[in-house]
């Protein structure tokens, strides 16, 4: 296979969710390397290390202790070196306002935490594939919005 390994990060305070996400990622066809963080601060600390291997896509739960998803998103969008990263919001909230707000503040993908494992798998896979396309083809990443 010609495809290289995709670096992925997930920040979620819920251990179950992290586990399920990991399982889902493991079951999809794309070769990935997943880094897990249990809150926003951990994630940001990692990303801002000088030698960090930056993930191609970051899944962010909105509702986290210490530093929530929205704060992370803003920090990422304000950081010159992280600006280009693809941010996928991974949240329980299905409020249209929340969704729109995250998009406005620079999220690329919004995934409602699904109620079934199958749906989770599907959503993650689609997000990864599309992100990959946006990163490898001449597509305008400024306009990359995806809601799942």
């Amino acid at each position: 296979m010609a495809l290289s390994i995709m670096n992925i990060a997930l920040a979620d305070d819920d251990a179950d969710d992290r586990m399920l996400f990991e399982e889902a990622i493991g079951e999809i066809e794309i070769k990935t390397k997943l880094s897990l963080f249990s809150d926003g601060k951990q994630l940001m600390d990692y990303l801002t290390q000088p030698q960090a291997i930056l993930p191609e896509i970051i899944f962010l739960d909105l509702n986290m202790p210490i530093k929530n998803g929205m704060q992370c998103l803003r920090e990422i969008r304000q950081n010159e070196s992280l600006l280009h990263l693809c941010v996928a919001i991974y949240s329980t909230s299905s409020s249209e306002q929340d969704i729109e707000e995250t998009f406005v503040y620079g999220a690329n993908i919004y995934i409602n935490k699904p109620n079934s494992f199958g749906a989770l798998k599907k959503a993650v896979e689609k997000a990864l594939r599309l992100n990959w396309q946006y990163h490898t083809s001449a597509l305008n990443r400024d306009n990359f919005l995806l809601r799942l």
Partner: protein
Amino acid sequence: MTLNIKFDYNFICKAILQEQLDNLGLEYTLQSLGEIKFKNKLTPTQRDQLCQAFGKYGIEILDNPQNVLVQRIKDAITELVNDSDKAQKYNVSTYLSDTLNYSYPHLSTIFSEATHSSIENFIILKKIDAVKHLIMDKNLTLTEIAHRLNYSSVAHLSAQFKKTTGLTPSSFQRIIKKRKEKGITP
């Protein structure tokens, strides 16, 4: 203050390529955006240097012929999507097999293996990308866009947009507008 700008990707890419190649003092000709022909064989050091120089701009040197072909398929599709005359005239599969001299199934397989997606999906992505561009930068109405990009109807366009992005064109438009107002660029 906010400035709105518009740019030509091809032009930028070409400029960057030329700049980097000239920096290294290499003799070359640009065949197309995806293909550079060198007069002399590159030494491993030169290759590494070039790799590094291009890497800063996210330009990759494709090693195997498969990747080269995939890139050519993408280029061909880009061209097809951007040229509404051609898009009207040609069926995608025939266009691709004619331009690239491979059977369509072969191209399709190669593409899927290399990109996590099918040619068809890629075309849709490309088209939706064009739709976004037209909505945001040209301020065209959906009717006009549907006509330009060979959608059979506005409904078809809207449906495809929604399916691909999960958003309606109008909410997409609203989001991008708000982003611009707040000066947020991801």
